[in-house]
């Protein structure tokens, strides 16, 4: 992959990121959406209020953010692919039920279009401040997948992938992108991607065999329990309480450790399916920029600007943000003397990058004033790291802050 795919092709459409998300959901087989109006994600709901009934799906505007995710999980428990969309404040409200979906292993897709924060923040300005919330927002220990598309076309393909991962791995998947990408209008060609998406559309692993031998959370080698659809004769119990393989609440330490341990480890053997990233010009890079969303798009320009002035820069862009593709990051940065993380927050992605790279120096541009980071700023900082670092004189470890 060379660049974020934005190039016009044969049959083109001029659509926004949020529009692409709605189209991707329908292509992936989403047939239920519950939402609550919030800037800058409302266009997804508006599109689906018309798009879903056209394909015999259901759209409902609920009374609040909590009800929206609750209804989505309810629909998914009924066996229907379901999604909700929101922004920061609404994402906060959804966290408890997101934890329920993670714990009870109910597939669903939650779109969070990031805006300025904290609190009501800046509803119409971009931010990338929910990176850590997407990972750690609900209480207790649970696994989560978060995807971070960076273009209109990628929102479409990642929405499809979000459903596929969610259904295949029985997990909530967060689709995380910023206000710029959401409301940016780009010319995209979806025909291909749509066909690919539909061909790949994953089905949940459904229970089969006699009721007597079905245990709702028992697994085989893949670690993913087969789900039962109400009406299929299994009549099982689903709960947010810690449960044993039979699905009923338990406080038996061995049973809890066994099921929760399996849950927490369940993504590890599926990293091939989950991990996704873009490594652009990293092979010979002396400075690797690590970034997502609109900041990563600025970084693509910055890579070219650096190289034009003789600084060998590269970009590592995690498309799957959680679990972080850490092996790929280590590989992409193996030969680099410096790592730079530009992001629209006070330091989140840089923390994870620093964690993965250990004592290697990680520099960062942190901005939280509602303005995107420009290519020139990234290029300048990246070049300065090389100018001042010099071969073999690595800076002290730790994140350096700016702005």
């Amino acid at each position: 992959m060379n660049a974020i795919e934005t190039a016009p092709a044969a049959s083109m459409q001029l659509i926004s990121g949020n529009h692409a998300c709605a189209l991707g959901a329908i292509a992936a087989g989403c047939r239920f959406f519950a939402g609550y109006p919030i800037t800058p994600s409302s266009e997804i709901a508006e599109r689906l209020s018309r798009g879903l009934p056209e394909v015999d799906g259901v759209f409902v505007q609920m009374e609040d953010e909590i009800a929206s995710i609750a209804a989505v999980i309810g629909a998914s428990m009924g066996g229907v692919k379901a999604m909700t969309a929101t922004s920061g404040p609404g994402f906060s409200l959804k966290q408890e039920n997101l934890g329920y979906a993670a714990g009870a292993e109910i597939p669903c897709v939650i779109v969070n279009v990031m805006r300025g924060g904290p609190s009501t923040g800046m509803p119409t300005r971009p931010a990338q401040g929910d990176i850590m919330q997407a990972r750690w927002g609900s209480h207790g220990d649970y696994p989560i997948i978060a995807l971070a598309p960076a273009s209109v076309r990628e929102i479409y393909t990642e929405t499809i992938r979000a459903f596929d991962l969610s259904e295949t791995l029985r997990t909530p998947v967060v689709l995380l992108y910023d206000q710029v990408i959401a409301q940016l209008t780009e010319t995209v060609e979806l025909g291909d991607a749509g066909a690919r998406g539909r061909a790949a559309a994953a089905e949940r692993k459904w229970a089969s065999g006699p009721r007597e031998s079905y245990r709702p959370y028992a697994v085989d080698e893949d670690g993913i329990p087969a789900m039962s659809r109400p009406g299929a004769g299994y009549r099982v119990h689903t709960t947010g309480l810690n449960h044993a393989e039979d699905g009923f609440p338990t406080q038996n330490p061995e049973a809890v450790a066994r099921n929760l341990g399996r849950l927490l480890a369940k993504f590890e053997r599926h990293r091939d399916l989950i991990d996704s990233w873009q490594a652009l010009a990293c092979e010979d890079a002396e400075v690797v920029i690590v970034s997502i969303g609109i900041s990563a798009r600025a970084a693509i320009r910055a890579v070219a600007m650096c190289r034009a002035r003789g600084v060998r820069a590269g970009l590592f862009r995690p498309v799957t943000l959680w679990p972080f593709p850490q092996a790929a990051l280590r590989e992409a940065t193996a030969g680099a003397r410096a790592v730079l993380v530009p992001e629209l927050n006070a330091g989140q992605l840089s923390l994870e990058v620093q964690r993965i790279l250990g004592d290697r120096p990680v520099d960062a541009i942190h901005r939280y004033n509602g303005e995107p980071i420009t290519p020139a700023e990234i290029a300048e900082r990246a070049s300065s790291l090389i100018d001042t670092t010099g071969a073999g004189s690595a800076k002290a470890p730790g994140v350096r802050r700016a702005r």
Partner: protein
Amino acid sequence: MSATTMLDSAAEFDVRDYLRAEMMPHFLCPGCGHGIALRALLWAVHELAIDKDRLAVVSGIGCAGRLSAYIDASTFHVTHGRPIAYATGLALARPDLHVIVITGDGDCLAIGGNHLIHACRRNLKLTCLMLNNEVYGMTGGQVSPTTSETRVTSTTPLGNSEPHFNACALAAAAGAGFVGREVTHHVPKLKELIKAGLAHPGFAFVEVMTDCTEIFGRKNEMGSSAEMVLRQKSELRPSAYRDTVDMPFAAKDLPTGILARNDRPEYGEAYRRAAVAIKSAADNPAAGRKSRQ
């Protein structure tokens, strides 16, 4: 229904046919009214011949919320206050299922109050059984939105000074298609009310006055569980006992029976009708509004 047929029906109804034997013994305190409400619900399900495989029960958090685990159906024990919202998604996605919500007074009226009033307004076909014992039992007996004035709870040591909700009046005002209240003192009547609620084509709200014997009863020195059930006659003064209670009636705070009914369009039906119009407009853009690709 005459007294004879009630008895006949009781004879052929075996609650064990609808319970998960592997979950016994249950966790309710001795004398808790929730077990009586559960039996009445399952009796109603039996008399309406609702297929267990088509039955989905969604419950919230609290003592009432625990009941779903005992029912031999597809059961969902969800987050505190949200069972109506979960059930809304389930029922909209799966109109072939019979969806029942079991909730308590705290779950339904405090943390989940917003979902209740909007479910009443939306009028999606769901039966919401709210077990009202005037207290948060599971967490140790704190004051709830339905705790009567002056009652002692673990957070109103000197007696409750907040006015309590009249849940049925609230549901009716919010537009619920079916609203009723009954007490656990009279199980056949309770079963009949639940049956009527289950048969209602829209959102049905059924409030069941039950006794938290172990915590609320003890704190308020209300005696044994049998004494508490008897108090339902003398203290609640429901209209059902107008003829049997010998005391002069005070203001009827909590009347029983079917309290409100209307035949507003059911939401799921209405939605599916509108969807047909959207679809035909999409198939035939010239005839309808411009369709989106």
